[in-house]
């Protein structure tokens, strides 16, 4: 294993397309930009894909990898920039069908299979016209068997796709891309659901494709995979392509440095005085397993602690937080310590009864009531407190709410206006106020600062540290490194559905964190 200096300086970005002439470029994007509402997913992404190369894309959460893939697959339209396919400049690929016609086939991160249809149908999905078959029946069978056979031992073509194990289902999706003989094959984290044997076979298939002159855009979080097959690597950071490097040009540590960048040094988010001294344990995960092959997780969380939950998107951290909030784990249990007695948490209702409050990630779908007022949205979890002689008193609710308007600096008009009249950040503050009002012993937050502005973030951080100082255990999933580093007493890093490592406050650096997301060994 290559070993490096402790804190490497980011290497000077080397765009080698400027160095050597772009020979045989099959796909080129320049200055690609795309935003979703207020979120700028891609701001300036440029890269070129050459004939017969495996080109890896790396970047941390929210760097724009999936958005890039979806633009190249015809799912999203870019707001700006150009796409050049086979020397022909096109403003964008208008649909997945157009991308297919241009010779681009994509395997997406989510497993996209029509579960009730047979494996054979799933492989040829979309290859025919509406009424005319383009490929004769015998050839369909033979080629499907051959292609899927390259990935798994005994391809069963006539069973329904949802009868297959996860890995075989993903292999079916990969076969769907392969039977099209693509000029450009895009694999977006397509290996994460594959078992080891299938992954090895896929790599052999990719080698053959490359030898035939096809090009592969390979998105993976696994440094070892990228090192194994990528000819070049483009690093994305905050929606920009920051560097393209040839194989061996950068060490893993240097790649990590490129992914994290050297953003302006953050101001201290917590004053040293507020730094908590952890109290008695309030909740623990006892042998919690998130899926059948995962190692059990044993974690104890103490009163007054700020605990971060981290990892690349979709590696189990979201599930773990939900388990703490009362969702059933695959195995094991969540146990609360209440007044010296231990109580298991079996449902969201249990969790609430034991003083566990949960702020979900998807504000619109899971936490706000869009048609109700600001006050009602605040009041809903603690409505009993506003009851006098059996009647609800709005004045009392308003008085309770005012306290949080002060501490969270909520900017709201009349309290009976609909919650949707507020900005996203202020909606989130109302949701946090809702749960703080029940004086939780444990406050769980699922990426609460996603898509909110810097000022709002700061207000949320302050309220959370205050809550911790008063003895609430705060557990927060975050996709922003800076929050994890500055706010947390310790961070639990998840990888592939299990707890990968735990970093204490003294160990929390950008490099350390991103290495734990991508690296091959524990920090």
């Amino acid at each position, binding site marked *: 294993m290559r070993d490096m200096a402790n804190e490497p300086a980011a290497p000077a970005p080397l765009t080698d397309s400027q160095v050597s002439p772009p020979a045989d470029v099959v796909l080129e994007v320049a200055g690609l930009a795309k935003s979703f509402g207020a979120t700028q997913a891609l701001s300036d992404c440029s890269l070129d894909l050459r004939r017969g190369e495996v080109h890896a894309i790396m970047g941390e959460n929210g760097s724009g990898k999936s958005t890039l893939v979806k633009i190249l697959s015809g799912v999203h339209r870019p707001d700006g920039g150009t796409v050049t396919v086979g020397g022909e400049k096109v403003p964008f690929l208008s649909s*997945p069908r157009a991308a297919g016609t241009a010779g681009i086939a994509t395997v997406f991160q989510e497993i996209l299979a029509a579960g009730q*249809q047979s494996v054979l149908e799933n492989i040829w999905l979309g290859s*025919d016209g*509406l009424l*005319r078959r383009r490929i004769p029946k015998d050839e369909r069978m033979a080629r499907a068997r051959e292609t899927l056979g390259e990935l798994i031992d005994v391809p069963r073509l006539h069973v*329904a796709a949802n009868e297959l194990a996860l890995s075989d289902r993903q292999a079916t999706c990969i076969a769907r891309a392969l039977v099209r003989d693509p000029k450009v094959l895009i694999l977006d984290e397509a290996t994460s659901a594959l078992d080891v044997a299938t992954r090895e076979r896929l790599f052999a298939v990719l080698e053959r494709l490359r030898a035939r002159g096809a090009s592969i855009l390979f998105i993976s979080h696994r440094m070892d995979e990228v090192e194994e097959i990528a000819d070049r690597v483009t690093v994305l950071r905050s929606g920009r392509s920051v560097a393209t490097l040839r194989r061996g040009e950068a060490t893993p540590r240097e790649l990590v440095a490129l992914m994290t960048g050297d953003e302006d040094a953050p101001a201290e988010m917590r004053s040293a005085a507020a730094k908590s001294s952890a109290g008695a344990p309030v909740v623990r995960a006892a042998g919690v397993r998130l899926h059948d092959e995962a190692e059990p997780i044993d974690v104890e969380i103490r009163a007054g602690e700020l605990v971060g939950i981290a990892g690349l998107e979709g590696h189990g951290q979201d599930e773990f937080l939900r388990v703490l909030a009362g969702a059933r784990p695959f195995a094991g249990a969540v146990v609360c310590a209440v007044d010296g007695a231990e109580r298991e948490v079996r449902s969201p209702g249990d969790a609430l009864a034991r003083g566990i409050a949960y702020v979900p990630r998807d504000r619109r779908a899971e936490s706000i009531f869009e048609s109700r007022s600001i006050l009602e949205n605040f009041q809903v979890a603690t409505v009993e407190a506003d009851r006098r002689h059996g009647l609800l008193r709005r004045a009392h609710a308003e008085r309770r709410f005012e306290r949080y308007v002060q501490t969270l600096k909520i900017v709201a008009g009349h309290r009976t206006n609909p919650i949707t009249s507020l900005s996203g950040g202020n909606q989130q503050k109302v949701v946090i106020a809702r749960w703080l009002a029940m004086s939780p012993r444990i406050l769980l937050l699922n990426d609460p600062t996603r898509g909110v502005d810097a000022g709002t973030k700061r207000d949320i951080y302050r309220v959370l540290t205050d809550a911790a100082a008063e003895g609430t255990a705060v557990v927060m999933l975050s996709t922003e490194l800076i929050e994890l580093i500055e706010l947390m007493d310790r961070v639990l890093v998840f990888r592939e559905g299990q707890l990968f490592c735990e970093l204490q406050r003294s160990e929390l650096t950008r490099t350390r964190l991103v290495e734990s997301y991508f690296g091959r060994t524990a920090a």
Partner: protein
Amino acid sequence: MSTRVLRIVTQRPSSFAVGLAVLLLVANVIAQPDFIAPNQIAPTLGTMAPFVIVGMASTLAFLSGGGGIDLSIAPLMGLTNIVLVTVFFGTSFGGPLLAVPILLALGALVGALNGVMVARLRYPPVIATLGTFFVLAGLDLRLVPNPVTAAGDNWTNHLAGSIGPVPGAVLTMGAPLLLWIGLRRTPYVQSLLAVGDHDATAFSAGMDVNAVRISAYAIGGLIAAVGGIALTGLVRSADAQVFNNYILVALAAVALGGTNLAGGRGGLFPSMMGATCIFLLENLLTSLHASAYFIEVAYGGVLFIAVLFGARLFNRAAPA
């Protein structure tokens, strides 16, 4: 029971309906031995045909997924019946060679409009087709406020009776089934099932999801027009009320047949079997002089049992 037999049974969505239809047929024959007398078969099938055809017509919207449903099939059948009797009969367009293609085109057009509202304009299917239901029902009443008797002898009468030795209903029920069998030989049916199963997958694989959905509603409308022609032979009049008997039966037939109402699994044959069960059940209870109220209750009971049974089998077929 051997698991192999069970497997074959569970893979066919219509197994329950086929079994039930056979039982009900036997029960009907026991209750009323001349049920299968040779001279009874053609008229019985003629009475059954509209049930079966509206059931088949309603199926495609369900199969197309995305909450697909077409509530306007029954009043569209009514409209076809009314247009045929009041507009075409007695004119040079009254013959089958001209009238049939025009009526089928009318049905397909109304269905396609539903499809456009659902697929392109993103109306919830229930709302879009309920709107069409009211518009068509109103139009039907406007055209014939009171039933208009059809001219004594016309070609549709044969469809409810016999054409030579062949019951006319074999033709009216067989036509949609033949169309479906033909479509099965093209990629269309598989595309329809894939879109209904998981539209995001179908879209990302390059399918034209909107075209598939719109055509599903259009074919449903076309089959409804076939139903209108069969109905005309049966009732021998233009009637703006008669379609009411078929609204809910059409939906029940699809569910009873075993088509997945969320899309992706099923077909016209299962709905045909579902409709046959409903018809046979009604016939049996009527011949036993059961009250009309009880017949309605029996429909509901059979539907509950069928859905429960279907769900059980389906869960068994799909591993957790």
